[in-house]
């Protein structure tokens, strides 16, 4: 049991991880790295759920159940995203998101 670490340290860790993932989504040109960064953001959200559940209401594990569902959905999202990236690679022979400009006016 962590006696010295309070809720706010967990929340700050989640904030840092979320902003790192946001920076990855905004800055990277590789489509797979976009997927990886969105997974980082989802993980930081999971940290928030687990920390709030731990510190505020440990009798009912609703937050941990919610993060189990987030885990499921992020796995499905990664599978679909990778399939889309592979299909795009077949079409354009690259994974550079700057080159996918079919809808760019």
């Amino acid at each position: 049991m962590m006696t010295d670490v309070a809720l706010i340290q967990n929340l700050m860790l989640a904030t840092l991880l979320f902003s790192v993932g946001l920076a990855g989504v905004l800055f990277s040109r590789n489509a797979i790295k976009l997927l990886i960064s969105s997974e980082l953001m989802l993980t930081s959200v999971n940290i928030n759920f687990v920390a709030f559940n731990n510190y505020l209401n440990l009798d009912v594990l609703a937050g941990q159940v919610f993060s189990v569902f987030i885990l499921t959905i992020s796995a499905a999202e990664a599978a679909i995203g990778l399939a889309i990236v592979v299909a795009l690679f077949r079409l354009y022979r690259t994974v550079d998101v700057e080159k996918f400009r079919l809808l760019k006016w």
Partner: protein
Amino acid sequence: MNFFNQVSIDTLFFWFFAAVAVISSAAVVLNKSIVYSVLFLILSFLSVAAIFALNNADFLAIAQAIVYAVGLAIVLLFGVMFTGIKPLDVLTRTKRESFVFVSVILFSVTLLTYMLLHTPLSFVLVTPSSQVVSSLAQQGTAMLIGKLIFSQYILAFELASVLLLIAMVGAIVLSKKRLDVFDSEASFHQSTRNDVMFQHSQDINKELPVEVCN
């Protein structure tokens, strides 16, 4: 000795794994090679799993380690192998765009820290009650999570299973080689249409004189 008496071993673990998580996530984003990014991602997910375990979520820690750090990372490595590992530069856009992005990130970080600093201290500095923690340490969280999922959240559980099925079928259809389904269907329709038209024209040629005679 005094330091180790004051600080518990769990707190040291928390700070260690938090530092590892943040540094490896930064390495994921900043690394040029996508393969190293995925490997650092495994490290980041494992340290986040350790933080889950420190937050009395042992089942979720193991699920995180299995689903993310093993399953997802291997799927991502397969994706890297399919799409080539030619390194793409990070952070090389126009100056105006990078300014906008940096300001977006700084804005979100300052907003979140403002929110954290202005919540009441009694709310933020709360610690879990020792009674519940000791009971959880005895029986684990897997049974409680299972009971919740199969009673209160049964609808969400079934919806998640349907969603996983849809995602599996969608991923298979999307990653088929050159979308063969649509190509073969199109060629099939085209060929049958040509045959029908050919036969039809032959019929017309045969039947036309009859109709004209009538």
